[in-house]
């Protein structure tokens, strides 16, 4: 059913519609004003400050060696994290849907913990167990491995929560037919299950990629605050610039980070849609 436009509603409701429409206009204005003051105006200021010197200036910022290093580190670690997420996220979803064991619903609820737990607490818990005073003698503090661990923690739910409903809805007839015809379980997974999960898997991976690129709270304690360690991801460099009142440099880096996560969301979204379209045909 098509939504009724306000104009179409006028004759039907008679006199009431006029006050309704006036109210709608006021509400529309208030809502847009709220959004503008809190979200749009600040983002406009960010875009303006970052591109004030032209794209050349942004490019110049990128080519500063420390920035380039941070950019490479951020993208590299995030990419590795996304690959691990894709594998383990799918595996966890599989176990939650197809397996049955005692305490499964508790494990299912646990998946959302990283969304509910503050990121600074996530970083601190990892640092407490896998840091300098680790009781199990594993120390990943101030390493890239530590950053990856922190990002894995906060992005854990994305792939699992994207894949899970698809797996639940997946008709098992095809798999059973393949098994009857003699296909091994690996072949069934690769040829039947994985193509069906593809779009959801890519959508979840895209979200976790974008989240990993911008993450700050979880990595700040683990990465430390020393640029010489080579553990400064983009968000940390931007934070350092803000602390030093280097707003134009911070804005340029923010612009790069923003463009990067938008590109990631766009590419993964398109891949996901292309894959689902291909599968339907």
């Amino acid at each position, binding site marked *: 059913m098509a*939504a009724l436009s*306000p104009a179409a509603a006028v004759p039907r409701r008679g006199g009431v519609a006029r*006050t309704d429409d006036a109210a709608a206009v006021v*509400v529309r204005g*208030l*809502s*847009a004003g*709220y*959004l503008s003051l*809190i*979200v*749009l*105006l*600040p*983002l406009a*200021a*960010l875009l303006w*400050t970052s591109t004030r010197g032209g794209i050349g200036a942004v490019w110049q910022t990128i080519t500063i060696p420390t920035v380039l290093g941070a950019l490479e580190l951020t993208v590299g670690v995030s990419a590795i994290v996304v690959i691990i997420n894709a594998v*383990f996220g799918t*595996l*966890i979803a*599989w176990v939650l849907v*197809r397996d049955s064991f005692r305490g499964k619903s508790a*494990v299912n*609820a*646990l*998946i959302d*913990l990283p*969304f*509910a*737990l*503050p*990121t*600074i*607490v996530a970083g*601190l*818990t990892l640092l*407490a*167990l*896998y840091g300098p005073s680790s009781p199990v003698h594993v120390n990943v503090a101030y390493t890239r491995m530590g950053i990856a*661990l922190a990002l894995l*923690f906060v992005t*854990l739910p994305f792939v699992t929560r994207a894949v899970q409903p698809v797996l639940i809805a997946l008709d098992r007839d095809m798999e059973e037919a393949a098994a009857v015809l003699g296909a091994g379980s690996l072949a069934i997974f690769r040829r039947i299950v994985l193509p069906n999960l593809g779009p959801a898997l890519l959508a979840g991976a895209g979200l976790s990629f974008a989240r990993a*690129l*911008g993450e*700050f*709270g979880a990595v*700040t*304690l683990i990465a430390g605050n020393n640029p010489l360690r080579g553990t400064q991801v*983009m*968000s940390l460099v*931007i*934070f350092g610039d*803000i602390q030093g009142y280097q*707003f134009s440099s911070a804005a340029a880096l*923010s612009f790069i*980070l*923003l463009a990067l*996560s938008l590109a990631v*969301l766009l590419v993964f979204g398109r891949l996901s849609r292309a894959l689902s379209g291909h599968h339907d045909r």
Partner: protein
Amino acid sequence: MIARFSLRLVALGYLAVLLVLPVAWIVWSAFGGGVDAVWRSATAPYAVHALLLSVLIAVIAVIANTVFGVVTALMIVRHPFPGVSILNAFVDLPLGLSPVVVGLSLVLVYGATGWLGPWLTAHGITVIFSLPGMILATVFVTLPFVVREVVPVVREVGSEQEEASRTLGATAWQTFWRITLPSIRAGVIYGVVLTMARALGEFGTVIVVAGNIPGVTQTLTMYVEAEFQNFDPRGAYVASLELAVLAILTLVLMNVVRRKGVA
């Protein structure tokens, strides 16, 4: 059978190493010095102030974004206008931004050297490095949740009951309180829970716009960071524990609302 068992083992092992053991270890470490030490850390003046400040900011953000969220959701579904899809896209924006980027963009408008800085200074208003800025930052990052949860519910409920109520002579206000709000309650509560959780846990955005002065402009998440940097891990662990308890309460509430919403 063996394959299924080993898959289960790998999945649960991964969750244990990444999630369960670290969180359990924090709880264990916090209580390592006995319950008295936990109580002392939890009731330290700055810790108490930080907790209260976090709750205050979260409550304000929840109220502001719930009003905005319900009104905007009703508008998006019931009174679509040209450009509503743009509004829809803008509402989602905060979800895709890095916290420090959000903080910076607020500084560029409301900071002393920002767009509105001179005007604010002339009128004696400080936003950045004080409470208004922290509220603004929290409202920014939690803005999408209520809208996102309420829009599909409004769409699903439809407008027949509201039209019936209007036909029977109820005012728009009565219709909203008696018909609309009760029917979208589950979505609103879910959105509020998500907003509350995110607001209490926000760190990156708030630390950029807050002065981070203990006992004045330091939230509980900032207190965790400061205590850890000041070599008082127990203080950090205990404050983390408070935040973790709030997170777990949130999870439980989410599950309750989700189950009720389905039924």
